[in-house]
């Protein structure tokens, strides 16, 4: 960047901001003593887990705290003027149209009953007094600026007629129309698929370069923050615990919480045999019951006596590196040592499940899916069209051997959930066979025998709907035990408690209702319920994707432990490639109802790649600013599964398309030397010559 000769007045300076929410139980101090600056042309990433107050800070700045929220102290200086305590009218004058905000869900920001062009032009007509023609011309220009294909045409469409990634582009374009000095982005890519997310992040980086806007970027995803931010602020329980340049945060984290976050996320390339995830113990304190000393002290591995007695201030521990830890220098220096292996020893509940080593030897697959198709019938849009089919899963074959973990990755709509639902029997396959323990189970769940049901169980994605809100934890796990184990009534309770211990929850959870549990705890109870009957195979449908990173690590560890102790076979769906890499032995990559690449986990992440896998890997956000990823972005959107493209389904978006052969002929399965099978026309030799997508570059400045 060119050296700036103007005095550096920050666009936004927040000083000692404190925000409370009034509730029936009294005031909740949601944000306390938060300070930061954002300079022109700079992106400040704010990272933290859910409930840490990062969105509240953003809402405080734009004064959207709602009826029960208010700023109790501190200053918000926007271009030198304090926004706190001003009336709504004054605020509007100071702020004008100089602050824009982009939210997580673009559908919330767009009016579904207005054409996109009309709502975009309205911004200019109202704020700038432009006439309609000029406004529309400017809008088209801006849409082109955010790389919207066919911008003039998009102006005439309604929000539901474009995809989620495109909607978010429109929202960003709208935010930029007034040339704001500050752009606040609250998890703008969280709801998007990884390839779309990558394209939006590229766009944000480009726009920042061109418009010189100050950006406040809020995200829970360390990988995303590493990619977009210049400086990073880490929030924990309503306070800012560390603030530094992006490289310092990731390479020299000086607050134990930041270090803890880094250890919780599997790095791409780590797997369960060589590494271990270390979750942060305990849970975030409630704002009404904060510990007397350091807010992180109860969960901190470094905590000493002083930590419980006085609360550390945010202080500069190195040039431009602020941390609120009494021993920050020491901690940054020595880093964190994994605890002695004793921690990895089996938990007390382990003896209940003797390891079943003998099964592992059997080479026959326990679950075998051959040429399976699952179509959903939808009424045709034509008047006399008969019926059409959504080809959700189209000719998929997989085999899972006992004790193995198969990972299925793919973006939303690729059919991975339908595949699992068909295996478990919630959907009936249209064609093909599903064989489980040598028995054909291509039938709905209601016709399966108790023995099959017992041995094939499932863990669900959404922690809020996995448990029945009306029954206690003990009753729900007990029900599964009664169904599958036929235990006498008195033994059920003891067995439930043993399962709760195995889940590291303990007996005190027996009588709790789901609403008294956190997301991670609910997920553990869901796992306990699934393994209550000691199933052979557990299907996990994105079990950790709705959880915070520290909780995610704990749940993944738990699943690993269960697998090691019980020898359970698992099928694990995820969209997070690093999680799948960490957790699975074999990985299948799905695109539009078909598997495009399948093989051993380590082989999938190395060349030769299927072109789709290559694009996925180049898009995955990696929480390490040193990592360099090839920039491969897919054009267009996923075609409809109602009428998938002929030949190779990926040809419409493939950056390595060969030509007509891809459009007309179904590709062959090619077996690579590394063990994976690739569904592509490109000769294996050529695929093998691909460069690795992810490379580690040297740190920009050492130390």
């Amino acid at each position, binding site marked *: 960047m060119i050296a700036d000769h103007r005095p550096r007045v920050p666009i936004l300076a927040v000083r000692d901001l404190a925000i409370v929410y009034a509730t*029936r139980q009294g005031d909740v101090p949601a944000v306390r003593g938060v300070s930061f600056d954002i300079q022109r042309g700079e992106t400040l990433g704010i990272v933290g887990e859910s409930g840490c107050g990062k969105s509240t800070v953003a809402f405080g700045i734009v004064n959207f705290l709602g009826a029960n929220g208010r700023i109790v102290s501190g200053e918000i200086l926007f271009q030198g003027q304090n926004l706190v305590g001003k009336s709504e009218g004054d605020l509007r004058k100071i702020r004008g149209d100089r602050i824009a905000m982009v939210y997580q869900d673009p559908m919330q920001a767009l009016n579904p009953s207005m054409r996109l062009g009309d709502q975009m032009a309205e911004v200019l007509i109202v704020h700038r007094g432009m006439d309609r023609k000029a406004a529309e011309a400017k809008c088209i220009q801006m849409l082109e600026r955010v790389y919207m294909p066919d911008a003039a045409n998009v102006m005439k469409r309604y929000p539901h007629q474009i995809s989620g990634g495109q909607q978010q582009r429109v929202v960003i374009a709208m935010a930029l129309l007034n040339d704001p000095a500050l752009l606040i982005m609250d998890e703008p890519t969280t709801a998007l698929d990884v390839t779309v997310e990558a394209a939006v992040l590229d766009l944000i980086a480009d726009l920042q370069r061109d418009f010189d806007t100050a950006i406040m970027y809020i995200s829970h995803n360390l990988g995303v923050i590493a990619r977009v931010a210049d400086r990073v602020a880490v929030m924990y329980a309503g306070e800012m615990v560390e603030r530094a340049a992006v490289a310092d945060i990731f390479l020299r984290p000086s607050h134990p919480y930041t270090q803890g976050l880094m250890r919780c996320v599997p790095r791409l390339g780590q797997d369960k045999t060589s590494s271990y995830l270390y979750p942060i113990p305990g849970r975030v304190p409630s704002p009404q019951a904060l510990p007397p000393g350091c807010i992180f002290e109860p969960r901190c591995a470094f905590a000493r006596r002083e930590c419980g007695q006085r609360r550390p201030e945010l202080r500069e521990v190195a040039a431009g590196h602020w941390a609120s830890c009494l021993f920050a220098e020491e901690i940054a220096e020595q880093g964190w040592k994994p605890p002695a292996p004793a921690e990895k020893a089996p938990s007390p509940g382990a003896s209940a499940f003797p390891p079943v080593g003998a099964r592992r030897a059997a080479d026959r697959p326990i679950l075998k899916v051959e040429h399976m198709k699952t179509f959903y019938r939808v009424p045709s849009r034509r008047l006399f069209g008969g019926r059409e089919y959504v080809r959700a899963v189209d000719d998929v074959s997989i085999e899972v051997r006992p004790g193995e973990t198969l990972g299925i990755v793919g973006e939303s709509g690729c059919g991975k959930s339908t595949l699992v639902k068909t295996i*478990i*029997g*919630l959907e009936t396959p249209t064609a093909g066979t599903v064989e489980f323990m040598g028995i054909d189970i291509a039938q709905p*769940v*209601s016709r*399966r025998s*108790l023995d099959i*049901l017992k041995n*094939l*169980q*499932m863990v*669900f*994605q*959404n922690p809020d*709907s*996995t*448990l*029945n*809100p*009306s*029954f206690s934890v003990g009753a*729900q796990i007990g*029900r*599964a035990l009664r*169904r*599958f184990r036929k235990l006498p009534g*008195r033994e059920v*309770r*003891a067995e439930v408690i043993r399962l709760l211990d195995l889940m590291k929850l303990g*007996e005190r959870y*027996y*009588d709790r209702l789901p609403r008294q549990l956190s997301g991670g705890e609910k997920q553990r109870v*869901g796992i306990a*319920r*699934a393994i209550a009957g000691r199933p052979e195979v557990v299907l996990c449908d994105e079990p950790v994707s709705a959880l915070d990173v520290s909780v995610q690590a704990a749940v993944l560890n738990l699943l690993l432990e269960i697998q090691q102790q019980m020898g359970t076979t698992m099928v694990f769906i995820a969209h997070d490639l690093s999680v799948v890499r960490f957790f699975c032995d074999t990985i299948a990559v799905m695109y539009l109802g078909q598997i495009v690449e399948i093989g051993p986990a380590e082989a999938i992440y190395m060349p030769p790649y299927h072109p789709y896998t290559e694009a996925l890997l180049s898009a995955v956000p990696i929480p390490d600013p040193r990592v360099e990823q090839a920039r491969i972005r897919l054009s267009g959107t996923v075609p409809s599964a109602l009428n998938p493209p002929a030949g190779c389904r990926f040809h419409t978006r493939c950056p390595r398309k060969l030509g007509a052969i891809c459009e007309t002929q179904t590709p062959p399965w090619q077996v690579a030397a590394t063990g994976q099978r690739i569904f592509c026309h490109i000769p294996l030799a050529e695929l093998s010559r691909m460069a690795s997508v992810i490379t580690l570059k040297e740190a920009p400045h050492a130390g």
Partner: protein
Amino acid sequence: MTASTQSISLAARPRWWRRIWNGLAILFASKTAVVGLIIVLFWVTAAICAPLLTPYSPTAQDYRAQNSGPSAAHILGTDDLGRDIWSRLLYGARIVLIMLPVGEHVWLPLGTAIWGVLLGLLVGCTLGLVAGYLGGWIDEVVMRVLDAMMAFPVILLYMIIIAAVGASATNVVLAIAIVGTPGIARLVRGLTLDIRTRDYIRAAEIRGERKLYIMFVEILPNARGPIVIDAMLRVGYAIFAMGTLGFLGLGLPPPSPDWGSMVASGRRYILAGSPWAALWPSLAIASLVVGLNLLADGLREESMRYQ
């Protein structure tokens, strides 16, 4: 084992208490609900304590005081046959709220209106659950039949039913149940359609639970909030319907103290200068219905606010 049994009872009791306490907290947070509760409780206590609150029998006639206004002897006055209106109101409230006469000397606890709504809930919930959970042609058949029932004007439907089966307390219960069923079924079906998409229903299915178990144990308890509030409103409508039927001469056979028939017989004397016999039972019906509505509305608003 004793240790664990003890811990159940220890853990269970506070939770039970906490639930009641939470319910009361919601109730008392809403002024609307408190006002409604006071009105409803007034009528419930009045009905329960009827013999203590009045010296007269509801059917005892006093030929010396016909159509008299409020006085020290008869605080609300008397009707055309010289019966004490206050005691007729109290005993009328008993039939509505706390006891159901099923035979000559056989009484069931809970009043006519409440039994009617309970019976409607039983049938309506079952139909709604079946239609919503099973879906397909069963849903179509059940809902189209109920739609056809809903196409009749409510009063007409009551009159048809009572005309067909005759006027008695049990038949009024039956009529209230039949008229209420389609609405309840519709509500429960809507709730079921939402709840059945939750993952815990999938978990029950892959445990191989029976459909009846899923409907009544997994789904129904999670629909209870809206059903309870709807039921409170329905008790109000049922009291209204009983008043209407009584007014039209289709309620309880005379001389039972029925609010609707009291209005009907008092109506003739309004212009003759003694409006009391029609006024008091009208006010009784109105206040009880308004009270139940306030209670239900208050509860609904307050429970939605903190969801």
